[in-house]
C-alpha cells in the first residue's frame, strides 16, 4: 500500500511543472501553433477569402507563382536594403548616443530618459507624425530645407518613387535607435574602470581606448542586439503601411508588407501565407543563431 502511495506522489511531483505550464501551453498552441500550421496548409491551396467553398489543393503552385512574380523579387530586394540601412544606422546612432551618455555631465539622467521617447510611441503615430512632417504643401521638413537653401523647391518625399523608400527608412531609424542606445549603455556600464586605468598607464589615446577596451568589452552585447534588431526590422511593416501603404507603385514594398497586402487587400490568403512562409524561412537562419546564443545561458 505505502509503495503505491509514494509512487503516486512521485509521479504527481513529476507532473507538477507541467501542470504549472499547462495554461501557457494551451493558449500558445491555440493562438500561435494552430495559426502557423494553418499557414502551412493555406500556402498549398488556392485560398481566396471570398470563395470559401472552393479551395483547391495546388501543391507548390503558390511558390511557383512567387518565383515568376516580379513584385516578390522587388519586395525581397527592398527587404535586404531595408534591413541593412535601418539596422545599420540605428546601430551607429545608438552606439554614438550610448558612448556620449556614458560620459558624466550634470543633465545626463534627463538626457538618458528623453532619448528613449521614440521607442515608446505606437507605430501608427510614428507614421502619422513623419507623414505630417514630410507633407508636400505645408510640411516642416520642406520648410526647413528651403530656408537652409538645401532644396530649391518643395519635394513630395513620400509620393516620389526615388525618395519614398528612404523617407520611410529615416522614420524607422528614428524609431529604433533608442533601443541600441539603451542596450549598449547597459553594456558600457559593466566595463570595469580598471581596464581604462590600465590602458591609460600604457599611454592609450581616447580613440585607442575605444577600439581596444570599449568595443571588445561590449562585442557580445552588440552582437545580440544586432541579431535581435535584424529580426524585428525584417518583420516590421506597420510604419510603412501607415506612411505609404507600399507605394508609390511598389517603391516601398518589403516582403512582410507584400504578404500582408496580398491577404488584407487582395484577399489571396493562400498566396499571402506562402509569402509569409518564405519570409519565415529566410529569417530562421538569424533566429537560429540568436537562439543558440541565448540557449547557451539556459543550460545552467
Amino acid at each position, binding site marked *: 500500500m505505502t509503495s503505491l502511495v509514494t509512487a503516486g506522489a512521485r509521479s504527481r511531483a513529476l507532473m507538477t511543472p507541467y501542470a504549472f505550464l499547462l495554461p501557457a501551453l494551451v493558449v500558445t498552441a491555440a493562438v500561435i501553433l494552430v*495559426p502557423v500550421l494553418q499557414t502551412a496548409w493555406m500556402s498549398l491551396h488556392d485560398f481566396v477569402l471570398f470563395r470559401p467553398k472552393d479551395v483547391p489543393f495546388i501543391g507548390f503552385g503558390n511558390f511557383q507563382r512567387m518565383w515568376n512574380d516580379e513584385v516578390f523579387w522587388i519586395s525581397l530586394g527592398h527587404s535586404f536594403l531595408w534591413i541593412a540601412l535601418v539596422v545599420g544606422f540605428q546601430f551607429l546612432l545608438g552606439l554614438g548616443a550610448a558612448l556620449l551618455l556614458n*560620459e558624466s555631465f550634470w543633465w545626463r539622467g534627463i538626457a538618458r530618459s528623453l532619448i528613449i521617447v521614440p521607442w515608446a510611441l505606437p507605430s501608427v503615430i510614428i507614421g*502619422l507624425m513623419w507623414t505630417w512632417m514630410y507633407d508636400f504643401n505645408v*510640411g516642416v521638413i520642406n520648410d526647413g530645407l528651403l530656408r537652409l537653401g538645401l532644396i530649391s523647391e518643395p519635394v513630395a518625399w513620400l509620393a516620389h518613387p526615388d525618395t519614398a523608400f528612404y523617407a520611410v527608412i529615416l522614420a524607422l531609424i528614428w524609431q529604433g535607435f533608442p533601443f541600441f542606445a539603451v542596450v549598449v549603455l547597459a553594456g558600457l556600464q559593466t566595463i570595469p574602470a580598471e581596464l581604462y586605468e590600465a590602458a591609460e598607464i600604457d599611454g592609450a589615446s581616447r580613440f585607442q581606448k575605444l577600439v581596444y577596451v570599449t568595443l571588445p568589452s561590449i562585442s557580445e552585447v552588440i552582437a545580440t542586439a544586432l541579431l535581435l534588431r535584424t529580426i*524585428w526590422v*525584417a518583420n516590421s511593416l506597420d510604419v510603412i503601411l501607415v506612411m505609404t501603404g507600399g507605394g508609390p507603385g511598389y517603391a516601398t514594398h518589403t516582403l512582410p508588407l507584400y504578404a500582408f497586402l496580398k491577404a488584407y487587400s487582395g484577399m489571396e490568403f493562400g498566396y499571402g501565407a506562402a509569402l509569409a512562409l518564405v519570409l519565415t524561412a529566410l529569417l530562421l537562419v538569424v533566429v537560429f543563431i540568436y537562439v543558440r546564443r*541565448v540557449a547557451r545561458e539556459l543550460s545552467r
Partner: protein
Amino acid sequence: MIERRSRLARVVQVEIPVLAIVLFALAPYAWMVITSFKPNEEIAQWPVAYWPSEGTLQHYRDLLARTTFAGNLLNSFIVAVGAVTVGLLVSVPAAYAFSRFRFRGRRFLMVQFLVVNMFPIVLIIIPLFVLMRALGLLDTFLGVIAGHSTFAIPFSIWMMTSYMNAIPPELDEAAIMDGASRLQTIRLVILPIVMPGIVTTGIYIFVTSWNEYLFAMMLSGQNVRTVTVALQLFIGEFTVQWGLLTAGGTLVAIPVTILFLLVQRRLVGGLTAGAVKS
C-alpha cells in the same frame, strides 16, 4: 572614462552632441504636440509658422465631441487590460515552473517560447483572421485580446522567469521546512517578492498592446476598434485634418510615454534576453 575633460571640451565634445541627439529624438513628437494646439489657418500656413500665435483646444474638443475617439480610447484600454490579465495569468505559473523545476523538455520549451516570439507577424495574423472568423470572434474584445496574447505570453514568460530566478531557492526551502505547502509558498513567499517584476511586465504588456496596430486592424471592426486603428482611419475619412490627427496622436502617446519611462530601467535585463519586442 577616467581622465577629466576640461569644461569647454566637455561642452563641445559631449553636451552639444547629446543635445543634438535629444533634439532629434524629441522633435517629431514636439512638432505633433505643437501642431495640435494650432488653429487650422496656421496649420495650413506657408511658410510654416513654428509657434502658434494663439493656442487653441478646438481640435481636442472636436475630437472628443464629434468623433468616436473617446469610445476608441476605452476600447484600447479594455483590450490592453485584457492582454495584461491573460499574459500574466498564464505566464506567472509557467515562469515558476521554468525557474523552480528541472524537468524533461524545460530547455526545449523555453527556447520554443523565444522562437515563437520571433515569428513574423504576417505568419500568424493571416490564419488568425481566418480562425477568428470561423469562431465568430471577429470584432470582439476576446478576439483582439487573443491576438495580443501572441506576443504578451512569450514576452512575460521570459521576463517573469528571469525575475523568479533572481529569488534565492533557499527562501522556498525555508518556507517548506516551516510546513508551508507549495501553493502557500508561492502565495506568501514568491509572489510578494516578484511583485515589482509582475508590475513591470504588466505595464510593458499594457504599453505594447495599447500601441499595437496590425492585429487590432485585422481583428476589430466598429464595435471594438482601438485608437491606433481609429487614428489611421481618420486619414481616409476626413481629408487629412492634421489638427484632429495630431490632437489624437498626442492623447494616445502621452500616457504610454509616461508608463514607458517608468518601467524602462527595469526592462534592460530582459532586452538582450530577447523578450522585449520593440
